[in-house]
C-alpha cells in the first residue's frame, strides 16, 4: 500500500465523517464548520487523482466562496436567542427507506459493474478513448500515476484551458451569463424592500414643509 493509498483512505474517512456530521449535527454552526473539512478532504482526493486545477478551484470556490456564503446565511438567519436553531426530524421511515435503498443500489452498481480503464479494449476503440490512450500512454505505458511519477506532471491547467477555449467555448460563455444573471437575481431577492410603495406625497410631508 503506497503513501497515496493511505492518504486516500484518510481523506475518504475525513470526508465521510465530516459529511455525516453536517447531515446529522443538531448545531447548524458546527455543521457549517464541518462542511469545511468535507470540502478540504474532497480537494485532497482531487489532488490524489492528479486533478490539480480542480483541487485549487474546489478550495477557491467552495471553501472561499460557497462556505462563506453559507456561514453568512447561518449568521443572518440564526439569532443568538433563537432556540429554533435545531432542525427537527420528520417522517423518518420513508426517508430512511429511500436513503437505504439508494445506498444499496449505488453500492450494488459499483461493486458489480465492470469499470473499464483507459487502456482496456472497449474504451480504447471509441474515438474519445483513442485520444485518451494516445494522450496518456504516448510516452510511457502504465497508469497515469506511474507516468507522472516518472516524468513529472505538467498539471492539468493547460489542458483544461485549451478545452475551455476550443471544444467548450459556448458552454463556458453561457456560464458567465448564468453567473451574471444569478448574481443580479440574488441581489434582487435578498435586498431590503427598498422599493416600498411610493406613499402619496401630501399626507407624509413633514409639518414644517407644509407650513
Amino acid at each position, binding site marked *: 500500500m503506497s503513501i497515496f493509498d493511505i492518504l486516500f*483512505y484518510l481523506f475518504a474517512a475525513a470526508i465521510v465523517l465530516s459529511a455525516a456530521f453536517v447531515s*446529522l449535527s443538531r448545531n447548524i454552526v458546527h455543521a457549517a464548520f464541518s462542511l469545511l473539512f468535507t470540502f478540504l478532504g474532497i480537494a485532497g482526493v482531487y489532488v490524489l487523482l492528479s486533478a490539480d486545477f480542480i483541487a485549487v478551484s474546489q478550495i477557491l470556490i467552495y471553501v472561499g466562496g*460557497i462556505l462563506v456564503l453559507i456561514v453568512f446565511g447561518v449568521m443572518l438567519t440564526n439569532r443568538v436567542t433563537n432556540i429554533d436553531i435545531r*432542525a427537527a426530524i420528520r417522517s423518518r421511515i420513508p426517508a430512511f427507506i429511500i436513503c437505504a435503498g439508494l445506498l444499496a443500489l449505488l453500492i450494488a452498481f459499483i461493486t458489480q459493474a465492470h469499470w473499464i480503464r483507459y487502456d482496456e479494449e472497449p474504451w480504447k476503440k471509441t474515438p474519445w478513448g483513442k485520444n485518451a*490512450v494516445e494522450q496518456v500512454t504516448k510516452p510511457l505505458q502504465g497508469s497515469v500515476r506511474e507516468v507522472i511519477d516518472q516524468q513529472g506532471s505538467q498539471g*492539468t491547467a493547460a489542458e483544461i484551458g485549451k478545452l475551455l477555449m476550443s471544444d467548450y467555448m459556448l458552454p463556458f460563455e453561457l456560464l458567465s451569463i*448564468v453567473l451574471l444573471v444569478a448574481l443580479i437575481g440574488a441581489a434582487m431577492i435578498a435586498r431590503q424592500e427598498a422599493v416600498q410603495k411610493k406613499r402619496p406625497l401630501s399626507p407624509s410631508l413633514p409639518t414644517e414643509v407644509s407650513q
Partner: protein
Amino acid sequence: MAPLSHYLAVSAILFVIGTAGVLFRRNAIIVFMCVELMLNAVNLTLIAFSQFLGDQTGQILVFFVMTVAAAEAAVGLAIVIALFRNRQTVDIAKVNILKW
C-alpha cells in the same frame, strides 16, 4: 493507487449522506449544505472517471458544476434570507404558502 470502485464508493456514500440530510432535516440552510454535499459527490465521481479513463472532459464538467453550484448558492441563500425576513423561520415544513 486505490481502485476506481473505492473512489466511487466514497462518492456514493457522500451522495447518500447528502440525500439523508435533505430528506431528514427541516432547516433550510442544512438542506442547502446537503445539496452541496451531493454536488460534491457527483464532482468526485466525474474526477475519478476522468482520471481512470484518461480523459480531461470530466474535469471540464466539474468546472461547470462548480460554477452552477456557486450561482445556486448565491440564489438559494438569497431566497433563504428573504424567507427569513418575511416569515422569521427557516423551517421548510412551515414554508407552505405554495402548497395547495
